[in-house]
């Protein structure tokens, strides 16, 4: 199987189901792990990179972590396939770009709930991605994977610092817990900056849909922990489950109710203008599409727009991205051509002409 086969549908995490999925789009956990006996990736020799890659690939595949594991050698993959995996959140941007062209690869579970990058910044970056608020389930799954891998490799670990990582910001548990939340009402009421500040005070990072350095397109934000040393995995999960996520969700709900109460016409206008544009425009750029989809998604969730459903909208967030668009249309296109093809695909998927 090749990455190209994934393209027609969104991965598990965009199914639009799962607890609190009106606001919490997805739950993601990743673990950073390194093997004892090798230098970290940034100091490894080419031969060491190859040795480690081969050893890890064999073990991941042998351990049968899932049915139908897809192994993609990233350094050999076409740029568009790498981009496709980035858009599906299965690999990171730096991993796709590959500074120094380090030999590297990713194992993807058949249902795309997990991915293991080999030779990223750390030897292993294991991630589990699920739709809606499912951090407990995600943690159980990733912990199982970690335990299985540990049976056949020696992790670099010290009693004082825990799991040793190339960058000391990940040392200790090596865990990053994050939720992707859709916060259109907080953006419309202008309170999003305050939420960001509050999150930062709780030592959380708030980023856009595509992680570090990306803008929050489509009102999608990723909220994640920064502290990995001196806190257990369970404490961190409990923070997210009992404090962080409920507060953000309550805040967004409150902003939505405020809009309905105080500016219902303006709210409906936004939602239906967005719908009108998406179903009639002939030329659409990615940023504009994400903003329009955000308002349509808000309309569907509030029951104020009944011409489409959440799954269709969620899928469009992904399928309108450049690599997906070109894979679906099976055509390499420049940005101008993509804008036309994007508008056409959206009209088709939304049942317009």
């Amino acid at each position: 199987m090749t990455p190209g086969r994934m393209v027609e549908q969104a991965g598990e995490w965009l199914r639009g189901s799962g607890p609190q999925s009106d606001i919490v789009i997805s739950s993601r956990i990743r673990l950073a792990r390194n093997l004892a006996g090798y230098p970290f990736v940034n100091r490894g020799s080419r031969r060491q990179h190859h040795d480690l890659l081969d050893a890890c690939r064999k073990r991941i595949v042998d351990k049968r972590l899932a049915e139908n594991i897809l192994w993609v050698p990233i350094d050999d993959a076409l740029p568009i396939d790498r981009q496709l995996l980035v858009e599906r959140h299965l690999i990171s941007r730096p991993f796709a770009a590959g500074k120094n062209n380090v030999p590297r690869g990713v194992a993807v579970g058949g249902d795309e709930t997990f991915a293991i990058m080999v030779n990223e910044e750390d030897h292993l970056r294991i991630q589990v991605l699920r739709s809606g608020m499912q951090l407990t389930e995600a943690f159980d799954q990733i912990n199982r994977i970690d335990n299985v891998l540990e049976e056949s490799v020696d992790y670099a670990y010290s009693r004082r610092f825990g799991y040793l990582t190339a960058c000391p910001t990940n040392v200790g548990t090596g865990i990053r817990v994050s939720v992707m939340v859709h916060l259109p009402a907080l953006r419309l009421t202008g309170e999003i900056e305050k939420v960001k500040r509050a999150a930062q005070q709780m030592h959380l990072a708030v980023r856009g849909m595509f992680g570090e350095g990306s803008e929050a397109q489509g009102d999608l934000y990723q909220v994640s922990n920064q502290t990995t040393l001196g806190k257990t995995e369970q404490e961190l999960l409990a923070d997210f489950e009992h404090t962080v996520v409920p507060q953000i969700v309550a805040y967004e709900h409150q902003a939505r109710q405020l809009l309905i109460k105080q500016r219902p016409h303006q709210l409906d206008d936004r939602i239906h203008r967005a719908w009108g544009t998406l179903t009639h425009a002939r030329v659409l750029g990615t940023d504009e599409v994400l903003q329009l989809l955000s308002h349509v998604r808000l309309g569907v969730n509030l029951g104020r727009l009944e011409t489409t459903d959440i799954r269709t909208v969620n899928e469009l967030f992904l399928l309108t991205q450049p690599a997906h668009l070109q894979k679906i249309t099976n055509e390499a296109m420049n940005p101008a051509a993509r804008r036309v093809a994007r508008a056409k695909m959206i009209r088709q998927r939304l049942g317009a002409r």
Partner: protein
Amino acid sequence: MKRKCDKCSRPATHHSVEIVKGEKIEKHLCDAHAAEEGLSLQAVHTPINELLTNFVKLHAGVESDDDTKTAGDLVCDQCGITFSDFRESSLLGCPHCYTTFEAPLGPLLERAHEGGTHHIGKVPRRAGVAEQRQAQLSRLRRRLDDAVEAEDYELAAQLRDELTTMEDPS
């Protein structure tokens, strides 16, 4: 759309929602009342990576500082990086760096991890035997690299066998 302060008619600039025993408690206050309530935002927390970069840069700039200078000259005897290299890239070179640079890293980590100084999370099941084995594996692997470099394939093959046996006892 601006909400008013709970206690006066000025626009609310500070908002908080707390969940206490399932009850949602909201507060919306203007700057003055927020300060009174102690709700006013303290210095905004800096994201870790930034903190680390700033911290590293800051210390890189004060080479006259005796401690820092000594720390900067520290060399990891397994991967060869210096503490100054780490300051440049924010990346360590190998697991052993954590031992080599433990002294200068300690306070840095404490600041980056909300005061955390020691790992209290998951422990690998094989952690007990791990440390000695880790050192041994590193040594073997370095000898293997040297052997390949020197084109001593006989030694390389032998070391490779040793490594395989060690890594895969089954």
